[in-house]
């Protein structure tokens, strides 16, 4: 039986403080990104993105209060219903959505627009947590227990793909982290990473050379293998693994040249070699690296960035907001942001691990994984370590949908965590 002690006593203040710090730094940098030395503009003016973001922050605060007031059991009880509602919205937006930048995924209210795809992360997290809260489900032994999870992820992924928001869909890869924690064999993420590595190698080198290299390495492995291992099937295992890897190389090659559209291929190629197309897609990456690189150790100072002014960097207040941080606040500012994120994510993992119910733990890992994935891809893209995938930097990027969805995602977990002392032990 839960008692109603003041929520303020039990909520994890470290996470809340990091959250507030991120919002504050983000908002200041949005202002710097849209700042124009010629126009006298205010940070509080609703006519620019900084002013609008302040409004989104205000509404997010209201949302957070609601979340903290609602009974913590609500989220577990209504997990699948919330999931169903979001799926419904994703279907609606396909038919009635407004088209912004070629993706039909927005619902408009006057000059503000919301993107249901942003909330699909919350829906999937809750649904997976609810599903895994059944102690009979085991990810270690039973393959069939994976099918519902695949379904929970695939349905919104398919709908999002239809509305042309590939970026939001890729975020679902982050659920691999929670599945690994809950018992998915380690070789699955290992295979994923090897495949990713092969993919990059395939893009950089001629496929026949790679195939040759794999054969040579496989030959060396077999040669160096102890005789016993070789007899016990090590020979065939190595040969089969070698062939599978060659298959992946040729598959990737085929996929790149025959399945992907030209601009998608370009986005991947530019990741590997931005200079290959300095005036096309590579432009964003080069400009963003210049902006960040020119910040130096301590930055050019608030509102002093030259590179991020005058539209040198596109989508500056949304996906490329980190450029402004890098240019105006230098390595110090950038490092603070990176440390803030890593601390937040690590803290979330610690909180998740101290949960007594599996539902709460799984949900906590989902939140940590999603925020981590956004952090990794978004900042990685601005410093040229990731392809240009248009996903926002949590709490920093301008935009109501993403701010709301991350705030809800985070504070639902904080609410569940705050009730932890009163929940019964696991089971």
């Amino acid at each position, binding site marked *: 039986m839960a008692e109603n002690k003041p929520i303020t006593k039990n909520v994890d203040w470290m996470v809340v403080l990091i959250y507030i710090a991120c919002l504050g730094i983000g908002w200041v940098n949005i202002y710097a990104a849209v700042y124009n030395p010629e126009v006298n503009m205010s940070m509080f003016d609703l006519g620019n993105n900084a002013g609008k973001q302040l409004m989104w922050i205000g509404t997010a605060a209201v949302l957070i209060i609601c979340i903290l007031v609602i009974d913590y059991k609500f989220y577990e009880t209504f997990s699948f219903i919330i999931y169903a509602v979001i799926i419904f919205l994703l279907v609606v937006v396909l038919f009635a959505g407004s088209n912004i930048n070629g993706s039909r995924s927005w619902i408009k209210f006057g000059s503000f627009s919301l993107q249901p795809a942003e909330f699909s992360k919350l829906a999937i997290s809750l649904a997976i947590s609810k599903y895994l809260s059944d102690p009979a489900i085991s990810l270690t032994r039973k393959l069939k227990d994976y099918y519902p999870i695949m379904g929970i992820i695939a349905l919104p992924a398919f709908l999002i793909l239809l509305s042309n928001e590939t970026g939001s869909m890729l975020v679902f890869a982050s659920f691999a982290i929670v599945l690994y*924690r809950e018992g998915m064999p380690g070789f699955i993420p290992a295979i994923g990473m090897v495949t990713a590595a092969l993919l990059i190698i395939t893009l950089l080198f001629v496929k026949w050379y790679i195939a040759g290299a794999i054969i040579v390495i496989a030959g060396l492995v077999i040669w160096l293998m102890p005789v016993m291992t070789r007899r016990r099937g090590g020979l065939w295992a190595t040969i089969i693994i070698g062939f599978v890897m060659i298959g992946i190389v040729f598959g990737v090659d085929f996929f790149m040249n025959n399945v992907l559209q030209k601009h998608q291929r370009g986005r991947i190629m530019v990741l590997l070699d931005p200079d290959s197309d300095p005036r096309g897609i590579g432009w964003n990456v080069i400009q963003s690296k210049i902006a960040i690189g020119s910040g130096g150790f301590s930055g050019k100072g608030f509102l002093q960035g030259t590179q991020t002014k005058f539209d040198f960097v596109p989508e500056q207040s949304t996906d490329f907001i980190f450029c402004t941080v890098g240019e105006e606040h230098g*390595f110090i500012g950038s490092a603070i942001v990176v440390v803030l994120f890593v601390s937040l994510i690590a803290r979330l993992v610690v909180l998740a691990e101290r949960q007594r119910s599996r539902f709460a733990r799984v949900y906590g890992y989902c939140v940590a994984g999603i925020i981590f994935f956004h952090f990794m891809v978004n900042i990685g893209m601005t410093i040229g370590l990731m392809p240009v995938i248009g996903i926002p930097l949590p709490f920093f990027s301008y935009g109501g949908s993403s701010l709301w969805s991350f705030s809800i995602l985070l504070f639902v977990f904080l609410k569940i965590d705050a009730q932890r002392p009163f929940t019964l032990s696991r089971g």
Partner: protein
Amino acid sequence: MLESRRFVIIGFFALVGLIYLFRLFYLQVLDESYSIESSSNSIKRVIEIPFRGQIYDRTGKLIVYNTPVYDLLVTPYKARVDDTLRFCQVLGIERRDFDSLMHAASAYSRVKPSLFLRQLSKEDFASIQDIMVDYSGFEFAKSSLRTYTAPTLANTLGYVSEITRGQLEKQEEPYYRQSDYIGQSGIEKIYENELRGKRGTKFVMQNVSGVYKGPWKGGELDTMAVAGDNLYSGIDLEVQQYADSLMVNKVGSVVAIEPKTGQIISMVSAPTYDPNILASRYFSKNYAALARNPYKPLFNRPVMASYRPGSTFKLIQALIGLQEGVITPESGFTHANCPVGCHNHPATGTVALGVMHSCNPYFYNVFRRIIYKNNIQNTFKASAVGLDAWHDAISKFGIGQRLGIDLPSEYKGNLPNKKYYDRFYGEYRWKFSNIYSLSIGEGELLITPLKMANVAAIIANRGYFYTPHVIHGIGDGKKVNPDFLVRHETGVDSHNFDPVIEGMIGAVEGGTARRSRVEGITIAGKTGTSQNKRGDDHSIFIAFAPVENPKIAIAVFVENAGAGGSAAAPIANLIIEKYLTRKVTNKALEERMLKSDLMSKVILPGQKKPISPDSLKKKLISPDSAKKKLLEKPVTAPKKQ
């Protein structure tokens, strides 16, 4: 056991965080190339526009090339002009122009450069370059102007101008930016992708006031601009200009084709204008004047104007009749029982004589036999079936469809079929007696001068043609468009051309075009008189020569000039002689045609009688006269009328 996986996960997070910290440290602290010396320097991307491809004539003479010019740009928020008076004096503009230009630039953007004065010549640039350093916020950008070696071929070549807003939005791949130039018509439009070349990109460093501080990263990322492909045309510039001179003070077209290849030798759209006037900074003013001109000099008549072919169409009727077997070379017809009139001429006992004397009743009978060849009892049904068969045979000559020339807006023309008349009369409510005027090239037929020149080429080739084209080689490798190498067959056997060609020779030697025959060259030709609702008939002539080994096929159309023999035939034959022998023997005829002014007979659409022809040139600013007045009033300045 699974609990321990938390360390793997946190370790992974921390690893990514560390990698990013190292990467940031490398980018921001270690890699010097990003930390530009002064913190106020910034990197700017400069786009280098390559020279457009040049265009050559068939003898290797240059037709179109580029002249380097300089645009003056202003960035309003940086602009500091302390003594406006001196500034205006240097640029040769007036105070109010200065104000309105600055206003327009500020309205576009305070922080982005916009055009202040465009297309200053190299000399102008040299004389003001040093003075302009005193004024911050102004910069020059190199650009180039299309320049034409001769004032000819305006509509064929087309013009290049600033991209319009609509074009900017419609482009499939984002290549063009605002104020970029793009081919808007003619060859410049069709071959835009080949001519434009490949843009270069340079990354340069500049300080706050936009002063150049050297290349960024030593120019490592810069890409070179690649000049556009040169185009090689079949145009004979000398013949083209000669044809131009013959078409002065006339409205009409000349199209000359090399029959063996389909290359266009000459293409006149009269009245014409000097293409240089649309390649100057007076573009808008000159373009407006040309667009307002009642004679529509921007209308590319050879491919866009439509006429009834008149008697020239009899050649095709004869060929189809022979091929279908409804007549033989020895078939003869008299004027008896014929609803179409004729003139006085000797008896037409053979196809050759019918062609030579252009006998209307002769071809009325030929067409009647073609239509009724199917022997269907019901004349309505017979006409319907016969017309569609006839339509298919004629289509093979390129009539009623686009030939596919490398020029924009080619007009399809009109070749009526069963469906066409069904719409007017209803199905099976019409028969031969309703459509017989087609037999002599009147009625609902519409063709372009280009198509008739192509018909002349078909006859010269005795049965086939290559798609007429202006450009036959792209780039220095002279790459050929494969479409232009396809031989199109008309389905008429080569021996059936003999009697028709014999008649055409007769027409030039002693028939309707005898007054313009050329000594020493056997020309096969056919006059035509195209009836029209407005004023006198149009004069038409198609021909090819020399008959033994045809090198040129030609069609000449002169509006409201009367019979084909009066204006079109002499002009065509003078051009043929010029092309084949490089000289003209019949000086008297040449003199007469050069001087003949038929503008007073031209009746424009929507008018009852001819208007007094106002001179084209008076309203236009030629680049030569503009050169004298250095930096005359800028055209970009908004002006009150």
